[in-house]
């Protein structure tokens, strides 16, 4: 990749990323969200996060891998259990990461 390609790449990525994040904030005065949209907003975070996460766990390298031999799936299950039981985000993430690397070391 040439130097000028890199400049265009980063300028383009920065512009579209900021544009998406800022568009609604910029227009805030002119936007009035309908009640049903206001009602649906609380579903957005868990919906988006789940849609990103589940394929990353079940198809870690782009191929289906549904088995406890899949370290991503095992880590995800233990993370879920830790999260429900401890309700502590730091402990949850630490347990999930530890489970993954323990699995990689042992198998």
């Amino acid at each position: 990749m040439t130097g000028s390609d890199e400049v265009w790449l980063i300028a383009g990525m920065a512009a579209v990323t900021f544009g998406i994040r800022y568009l609604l904030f910029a227009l805030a005065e002119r936007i009035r969200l309908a009640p049903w949209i206001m009602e649906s907003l609380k579903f957005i975070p868990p919906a988006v996060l789940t849609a990103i996460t589940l394929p990353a766990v079940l198809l870690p390298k782009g191929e289906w891998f549904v088995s406890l031999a899949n370290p991503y799936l095992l880590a995800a299950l233990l993370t879920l259990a830790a999260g429900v039981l401890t309700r502590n985000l730091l402990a949850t993430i630490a347990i999930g990461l530890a489970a993954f690397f323990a699995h990689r070391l042992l198998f």
Partner: protein
Amino acid sequence: MNQPEHLRRQELLAGVRDTLPLLLGALPFGMIYGALAATSGLSFAAAVAMSALVFAGSSQFIAIGLIAAQTPVAIIVLTTLIVNLRHMLYSATLLPHLQHLPQRWRVPLAFWLTDETFAVTVHRFQKDDASPDKHWYQLGSSIAMYVNWQFWCFLGLLLGQRIPDAQSWGLDVAMPVTFIGMIIPFVKTMPIAVCVLVAGAASLLTLAIPYKLGIVLSALAGIVAGLSAQRLRASPPACER
């Protein structure tokens, strides 16, 4: 409206504190970005600039993969646009809470809007205390995420040049682990549980759709399902939780 300085500082520090666990999740994620970038054909300076100016983990990852595959710049930028569409859903959620702020606040908070800061901050905005300084909380979370990301990306770049097989360590597991931790606190009601199940099922049924567009479609399916569940529950007195 003029709040004492120390209340703002309290909000800012609370934002930093509540983001700390997510910094741990971003650590391996940032390291592997740096390590992959070092071997992708992107220059060191460009890889640092991308973290500093784009600041969007998943699209940075995808861009690195596309660069290594010699993809044209225009396609990479278009892919970034699509992968980041979900951020528009985030800004719609925050809009009612940030609407009253001047642009000098909205611009930086938009630039720093990530999955992590959004998930943490939304809980703060949803609390019903009347603090007028909740945006300081978001600022604290944003700065913590930004500084942390730059640091680990940089370290990953340095190490990536020395340890060629760093990408095979599976550090990308940090993303699902962190996200699962972030999802759990949201699932407090039956409609949200329905939303999560449907979004998850849809994400597996839309895998064939290119450019990760399936994420946005699956999220929309989950939102519609959650709304429907809420409506159904509101009309007859059904199972309460």
